[in-house]
């Protein structure tokens, strides 16, 4: 038998989606667009940076939960570039990364299967955001980079709740990585693969890259 809390959640969800169906709640599906310097990021191709130089992303995976849709994605540009989020009454609620409960729940399947390469064995917990590639600086020097952002225990927890609001008819949810790359290259270096203050700061900067935007 389900505990009362879960019955409540199920009932509320049912009512919520019923209201959407009846048109009493304004809901809209919008696409997630991951960009850098105004270009959608595709894997294995160089993207020029506004400051000069270029980046090439070879792997981009991260956990993103759409609270309105009650759906967890493992965004993985290798597998799919088309992710849809639910905007309700002008608002998108997202959770970037995994919460602490998931991190201590033992072996899980689906997006949390350790086969996905998003689990740190030596320091229990999931990598919430993984980005690997190459940065070519203005002197044409190539710097391979690997960023694995994670950590679920205070004071270094990297799970972020985001609430994006737009009164206008936003056409997509953008994750702009320009500032994040700049932060990583200038403040962190080219490798970050463990929890800590640098990961916390990197996740904060990353969170600021989410916005609701019009199609250009």
């Amino acid at each position, binding site marked *: 038998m*389900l*505990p009362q*809390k*879960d019955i409540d*959640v*199920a009932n509320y*969800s049912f009512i919520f989606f019923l209201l959407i169906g009846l048109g009493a709640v304004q809901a809209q599906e919008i696409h997630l667009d991951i960009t850098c310097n105004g270009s959608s990021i595709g894997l294995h191709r160089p993207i020029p940076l506004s400051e000069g130089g270029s980046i090439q992303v070879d792997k981009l995976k991260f956990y993103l*939960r759409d609270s309105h849709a*009650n*759906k*967890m994605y493992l965004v993985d540009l290798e597998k799919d570039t088309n992710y849809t989020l639910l905007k309700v009454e002008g608002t998108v609620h997202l959770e970037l990364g995994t*919460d602490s*409960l*998931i*991190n*201590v*729940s*033992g*072996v*899980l*399947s*689906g*997006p*949390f*299967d*350790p*086969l996905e390469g998003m*689990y740190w*064995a*030596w*320091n*229990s*917990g999931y990598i919430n955001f993984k980005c690997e590639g190459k940065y070519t600086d203005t002197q044409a020097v190539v710097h391979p980079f690997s960023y694995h952002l994670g950590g679920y*225990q205070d004071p*270094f927890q990297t799970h972020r709740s985001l609430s994006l609001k737009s009164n206008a008819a936003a056409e997509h949810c953008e994750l702009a990585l320009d500032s994040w790359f700049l932060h990583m290259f200038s403040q962190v270096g080219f490798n970050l693969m463990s*929890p*800590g*203050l640098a990961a916390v700061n990197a996740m904060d900067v990353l969170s600021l890259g989410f916005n609701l935007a019009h199609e250009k």
Partner: protein
Amino acid sequence: MRWMSYHLVSIWPMKSSFVVSLLLILSSCAVGWLHFHAPNQQTYLQTWPKPIYALNLPADSNLVELGRHLFYDPILSRDSSISCSSCHLQYTGFAHVDHALSHGIDSRIGARNAPTLVNLAWMPIMHWDGGVKHIDLQPLNPITHPLEMDNTLEEVLKRLNRSKKYQQLARNAAGSVEIGSVVLFKSLRYFLLSLISADAKYDAVMRGLHEQFTEQELSGYKLFKRHCVSCHQEPLLTDNTLRSNGIAPDQTNPDKGAYSITLNASDLYRFKVPTLRNIAFTFPYMHDGRYAKLKDVINFYSDSASAFRLQYADLKLKQPFNFSATEKKDLLAFLYTLTDKTFLFNPKFGYPQP
């Protein structure tokens, strides 16, 4: 399968599923693990703290069997040369006897001594630095670590799914011939949880059976209660916390312990308190295996004063205990009462029949 309830393929509604599943797991855990042991031992185990993890035997016995086969099979290592049991030998309390630092394939030397595997159902954190918080995914460490098995999860699953033996074992255990991450780690988990040691002379005395401590053992037990029990709490003989005992880092193998996980300065040189069960068999001692003999350990706590110990050791350990020679022997005599030969030589925990 019982754990299917918390497979998160659909994630709907995700958080509530977790709560429900965890409640189900915890409630099912409460009693099942006792069934693996003799009736008088069941009663004794009921006086122990409530386990964190549990078995639901005999329902899970096929999972235990699958886990046992995996534990003893070098198929997990990249070159199929070593198994879990290479560093965790039953006859030595599932510790890595006679190696200060455990080694993996190609004689690659690690940084720590492989700890004993016993009474894991009560263990909230694993590894000497406490970095692993759940037993399920602990085996992913040795399987993938370049200094241990140096394999990949993908390769392990590919090998297992090609094996008719494992397909049959998986069918028995999980109702499906396909072995994925969940079946692999759950079965290892269940075998590991079955490794319960609670039948040493110490336990017989505590259970009020016919056994009694000798005068020397009793004297040692009193010393233990005075100096050791705050960390090595009964009946598990560990409090499963991270502490510094004041042992200075080895110059050639500096190890900052739990600090490397938490990055908290107060965790510098803290390591998980090991259980003392079967301690006479689990040599060498300390996280880096620096002491080959139990008397060396006692000598450290008794006689070894240092500025490092004064600065970093837990409050009760900052000063040497200054045991007399007789007291050292008495304490040693007590520690020998922690040997559980029923556990060490239990065929249920040994190499599986082909």
